[in-house]
């Protein structure tokens, strides 16, 4: 009732107060900071309680906030995958993909509200690198449910999303590179499906090489990719074979004849967390604005490397070390770096925009209602500015910091398999038992795992 009365006030202060209260109420609807449930779930994961995190995330979407449905589905999908609930994880990834597509169309009112309040007013739109990982981790789900044909669909979808050489080419449009690892996984999937004759596997490996070269300026290509390029180029008589032989002289393209091939795809740690930095700026005696900007904070994890261990009956063991497939931590930082200019520009312009309106309104109030009313309005505006001007700190937090890869040629037979996580000094800090497995010559197997420590 009080608000309604104020609405019809001729008094400039009353009207301004009402507008301020309305925008304040609007801003309180938007999640400021990370969704509370995401913080809780991340805490449980960091403590290694995957079951608890999965139980929590399936129970309530509301606590992620209405504009965060993609973020919710992404976290939900990855946590359910960790918990071994693959079918539910598949559904969550599909929902995330579909919603991301729908978010292509931006609401003008919503965009305007990001200028009046903050960026968290806009629905969460995944970064390009996060979109690529939707396909990568969805393909892991299909590998884990032994649906290789569906895993290949993810590889094709990735290709359709990010056509190399086309207008959507991330190397040209985003300043940071599309990740070669996603293409590398596509190549492995094509090869595992026996689609080497069509050239799909070799093409994917070549694209992966191109992207790794763009990202690491030619300084890093995973050894497994080098070997795959040599192997497939030799098998198909590809014209690039000589160049690969000279560049990857240290790599061996051992024949898999009579052996089983075992791939390790190990996700480790957690991607960095976005935090909000802010600087209050006094613009008048009684009017304070604030500039807020997001920045990433890396998350500590112990297992900095790993190895895939095979133990035969009688205890004879051998292992193969994994290598870096993708450094998601670095990718996230580079992505933010690429967008920094736009984020900072908006972070500066928005307070200026708010200040212009507030200063103008303050003058009107002062003229009509006196300096006391103007002073009160100034204080309320300052509180509003400091409360609402928060950086958008939302990100796909359950993503790992790294994905590591290994390829082992294994003598056919019965093995107990485990993945050991090693710290910087090479001490084993985690060990994940992958059970007993029978490996048959000529077949390709996958060990997909997540190391949380």
């Amino acid at each position, binding site marked *: 009732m009080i608000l309604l009365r104020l609405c019809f006030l001729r008094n400039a202060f009353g009207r301004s107060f009402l507008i301020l209260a309305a925008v304040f109420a609007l801003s309180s609807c938007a999640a400021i900071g990370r969704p509370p449930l995401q913080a809780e779930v991340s805490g449980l994961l960091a403590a290694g309680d995957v079951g608890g995190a999965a139980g929590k995330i399936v129970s309530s979407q509301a606590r992620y906030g209405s504009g965060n449905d993609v973020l919710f589905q992404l976290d939900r999908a990855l946590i359910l995958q960790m918990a071994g609930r693959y079918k539910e994880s598949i559904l969550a990834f599909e929902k995330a993909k579909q919603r991301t597509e729908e978010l292509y169309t931006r609401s003008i009112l919503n965009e305007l509200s990001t200028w009046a309040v903050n960026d968290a007013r806009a629905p969460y739109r995944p970064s390009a690198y996060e979109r690529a990982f939707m396909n990568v981790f969805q393909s892991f789900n299909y590998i884990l449910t032994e649906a290789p044909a569906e895993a290949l*669909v993810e590889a094709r979808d990735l290709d359709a999303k990010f056509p190399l050489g086309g207008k959507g080419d991330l190397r040209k449009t985003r300043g940071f590179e599309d990740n070669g690892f996603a293409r590398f996984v596509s190549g492995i999937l094509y090869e595992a499906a026996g689609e080497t004759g069509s050239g799909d596997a070799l093409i994917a490996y070549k694209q992966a090489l191109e992207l790794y070269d763009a990202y690491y300026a030619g300084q890093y290509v995973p050894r497994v990719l080098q070997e795959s390029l040599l192997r497939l180029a030799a098998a198909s008589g590809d014209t690039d074979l000589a160049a690969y032989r000279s560049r990857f002289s240290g790599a061996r393209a051992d024949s898999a004849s009579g052996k089983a091939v075992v791939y390790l795809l190990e996700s480790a740690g957690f991607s960095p967390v976005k935090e909000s930095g802010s600087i209050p700026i006094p613009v008048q005696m009684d009017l304070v604005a604030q500039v807020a900007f997001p920045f990433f904070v890396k998350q500590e994890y112990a297992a900095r490397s790993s190895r895939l261990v095979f133990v035969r009956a009688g205890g004879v063991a051998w292992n193969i070390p994994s290598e870096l497939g993708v450094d998601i931590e670095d990718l996230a930082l580079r992505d933010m770096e690429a967008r920094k200019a736009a984020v900072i520009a908006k972070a500066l312009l928005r307070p200026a925009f708010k200040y212009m309106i507030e200063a103008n309104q303050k003058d009107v109030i002062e003229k009509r209602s006196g300096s006391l009313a103007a002073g009160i309005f100034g204080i309320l505006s300052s509180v509003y500015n400091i409360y609402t001007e928060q950086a958008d700190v939302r990100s796909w937090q359950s993503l790992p910091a790294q994905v590591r890869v290994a390829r082992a040629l294994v003598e056919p037979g019965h093995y107990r398999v485990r993945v050991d996580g090693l710290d910087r000094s090479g001490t084993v800090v985690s060990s994940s038992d992958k059970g007993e497995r029978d490996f048959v010559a000529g077949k390709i197997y996958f060990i997909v795992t997540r190391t949380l420590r």
Partner: protein
Amino acid sequence: MKRISVVSVAVLMLALAGCSTQVVRKDVGEFTDLSGRWNDSDARLVAEEMVRECVDGQWVSRFNKEKGRDPVVIVGTVVNRSHEHINADVFIQDLEMALVNAGKVRFVASKTERGEVREERLDQQQNAAVPTRAQMISETGADFMLQGSINSVKDEVKGQYAIMFQSNLELVDLTTNEKVWIGQKKIKKLVKRSQYSL
């Protein structure tokens, strides 16, 4: 004041209308294309058209002439080579229905369906009255197998994309491996999305 009330009521009603769930029943024969993805209408359309082409082919009359009976067909695998997760079973069922309805070929149960039928037949040998038992080793063998794939090409430029789904079907003679019929059907869709809405 009066004007404000009328506007307020109208806005409120619009808002409420936007929140309500609406269910509209559609005829299954009606084409619905919401997202540009492969859907039930595509599966049915492709199955009907391709089977029509298939059974109108020369191979049927040639077979009739040679064997003096209708050919027996089994539907094999339809491989999804597209960039979308397509439920191939829906397409296979549409193919089977179109084949049966065409009335020019006979049609036998697929590999997975046969398992259950065989189990029942075996069970009948022990439990059903003799005159009612289905006979063992009396299955009708297929003369031809229908196999195929669904492929897709997507071309995307800001705000709009074209998707082409290409379905390939082949009818293979089970005795000779000869491909007696090859069919192809393409569906092209253009999806436009506006960058901004109110």
